[in-house]
C-alpha cells in the first residue's frame, strides 16, 4: 500500500515538474516583456516597469499596426481559400468515387511527405518569373490546396449521412447547392477545427514568407520577430513583447476553442 502511495506521489512530482517546464517559458515571455534587455539577459524573474518603454521602442522600430494587418490579412485569406478549395476536394473524393480519382488521391497521400524545402527553389523561380515577388498573392497561392486538409475533409466526410444528400437530390437541389446548403452547415465542427489549424499555420508561417516578402512594409509579425532576434545586440525586452503580441491571438483561439483545437490536430488519425 505504501509503495502504491509512493508511486502515486512520484507520478504527481513527475507531472508537476513537466508542467513547470512546459509553462515556465510563457511566464518568462510575459515577465520579459516588462523588463529591460540587460535584466532579461541576467535572468530577472520578477515583473518590471519597462513595458511601456519596450512598447515605444517596438513602435519606433516596426510599423506594428501594419505588420499585424499583414499577418491577419494573409492568415484570413489563406484560411478562407484553403477551406473552400480543400473541403470541395475532400467532399468530391469521398462522395463521387471513381477509379482514376482514387488513384490520384493515393498519389496525393504519397506527396504529403515531401517537405517544403524540396519545393522552395522552383517555387521561388516560378513566383519571380510571374513577377509576383513581394506580394501577398505569392505568400498565399502555393498553400491554398493543402493535401493534409483535403485528407482531413475526406476523413470527416465519411461520417456525413448520405441520406441527407439523397433527400436533397429528391428535392431537386443541384450538387453545388447540396454542398453549400446541406454539407457545409452539417459539417460546422469539422470546418471549425480545420479553421484553427489552417489559421495557426498561416499565422505562424515563416520560411516561405521569408523568401517571398522583401520590403519592410510587407513583413509579417513572425518575420519581424526573427529580424529583431537576429540583431547584433538583440533588445530582448522588445523581442519578448513582440512574441507576446504574436502569440496572443493563437493563445486566445486555443483557450476559447480548446475542444475543436485538439480535435483538429487529431483529425488525420481518426
Amino acid at each position, binding site marked *: 500500500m505504501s509503495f502504491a502511495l509512493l508511486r502515486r506521489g512520484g507520478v504527481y512530482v513527475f507531472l508537476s515538474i513537466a508542467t513547470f517546464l512546459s509553462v515556465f517559458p510563457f511566464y518568462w515571455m510575459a515577465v520579459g516583456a516588462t523588463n529591460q534587455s540587460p535584466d532579461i539577459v541576467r535572468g530577472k524573474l520578477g515583473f518590471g516597469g519597462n513595458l511601456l518603454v519596450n512598447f515605444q521602442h517596438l513602435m519606433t522600430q516596426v510599423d506594428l499596426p501594419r505588420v499585424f494587418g499583414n499577418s491577419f490579412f494573409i492568415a484570413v485569406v489563406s484560411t478562407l481559400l484553403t477551406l473552400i478549395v480543400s473541403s470541395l476536394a475532400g467532399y468530391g473524393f469521398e462522395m*463521387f468515387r471513381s477509379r482514376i480519382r482514387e488513384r490520384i488521391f493515393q498519389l496525393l497521400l504519397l506527396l504529403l511527405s515531401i517537405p517544403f524545402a524540396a519545393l522552395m527553389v522552383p517555387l521561388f523561380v516560378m513566383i519571380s518569373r510571374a513577377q509576383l515577388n513581394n506580394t501577398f498573392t505569392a505568400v498565399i497561392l502555393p498553400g491554398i490546396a493543402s493535401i493534409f486538409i483535403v485528407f482531413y475533409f475526406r476523413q470527416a466526410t465519411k461520417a456525413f449521412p448520405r441520406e441527407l444528400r439523397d433527400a436533397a437530390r429528391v428535392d431537386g437541389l443541384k450538387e453545388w447547392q447540396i454542398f453549400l446548403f446541406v454539407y457545409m452547415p452539417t459539417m460546422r465542427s469539422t470546418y471549425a477545427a480545420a479553421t484553427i489549424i489552417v489559421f495557426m499555420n498561416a499565422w505562424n508561417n*515563416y520560411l516561405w514568407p521569408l523568401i517571398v516578402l522583401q520590403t519592410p512594409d510587407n513583413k509579417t509579425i513572425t518575420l519581424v520577430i526573427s529580424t529583431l532576434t537576429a540583431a547584433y545586440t538583440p533588445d530582448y525586452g522588445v523581442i519578448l513583447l513582440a512574441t507576446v503580441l504574436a502569440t496572443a491571438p493563437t493563445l486566445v483561439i486555443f483557450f476559447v476553442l480548446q475542444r475543436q483545437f485538439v480535435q483538429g490536430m487529431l483529425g488525420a488519425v481518426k
Partner: protein
Amino acid sequence: MAQTRLDRSEQVNGWAFVMPALVLLGIFMIYPIIWSLWMSFQVGRGANFSFGGLANIQRLANDALLIKALTNTCIFFFIQVPIMIVLALLFAVALNDPTLRFRGLFRTALFLPCVTSLIAYSSLFKSMFSADGIINQTLLTLHVIGTPIPWLSDPFWARVVIITAITWRWTGYNMIFYLAALQNVDKSIYEAARIDGVPAWARFTRITIPMLKPVILFTTILSTIGTLQLFDEVNNITQGGPGNATLTLSMYIYNLTFRMMPSFGYSATVSWVIVVIVAILSFIQFMIARDRRRAS
C-alpha cells in the same frame, strides 16, 4: 440510357469538386518537383542556367557541408525523436488514469507549447539560453555546474539547446495522439493484467506500447517529415552554427539558394536528395505497414 446519363453527371460532378485543388496542386507542387529534377542538371549562378550534365551530382559526392547537414539532421532525429516519444508516452499513460487529480490542468499545461509559433519560441529559447541567461543562472545557483555553459557558442551544447527546444515544443503534441489512442484501448486488458500480478512497468512495455504501435508509427512519420523540414528553430536560435554544428538540410538548401553564391541548379539537386530520402523512408514505412497487415 437514363443510367448512363446519371453516371456521366456523377463523373462530371466528381471532377468539378476536386478540380480546383488538383489544378493548384499541379501548379504549385507537382510541377515544381518535376521542374526541380530538370533544374538539378543545370549549372550557373542565380536563375541563369546552362546544362551541366552530371556536374551537380559529382558536386554532391564531395560536398562536406551537405554531409554535415545530413549528419546533423540524423543526430537530431535519432536523439530527439526517441526522447520525445518516450516522454509523450509517459505523460499520456499518467494522464489516462481516471483517478488522477488535476488531469485537465496537467493536460492543458503540457499541450500549451504547441500553441506558440516556431519563431516565437525560438526567440524565447535564445533569450533563456544566452551565456549569462536564466538557465545558466539557475544551474549555477543550484550548484549543478561550476562555470556557465557556453550554450550557443559550443557545438555540442548548441545541439543540446536545439534538441531541448524541439522537445519542449512538440512533446505535448505527440502526447495528444497517444491519449486519444489510449482511450480506445480496452480497460479490461489492464484489469486482467493487474489481477495476474503484472507489474506496472511490464504493463507499460508489454501492453501499452504494442497497443499504441500504429499511432507511434504515425507520429514517427510526422517527426521524420518535421526533422527534414527543420529550419525555423535553427535559423533563429543558432543560425546553423557554431561551425555548422546545427546546420540542417532545409537550412542548407536555403543558404545555397539565397545566402551563399546562389546556385539554383545545385540547390535543386540537394532538394532531390531530400525527395529520395523521403521516398526511401516511405517505402520502408509501407513495408512495415504491409507486414503488420499480413500479420494481423
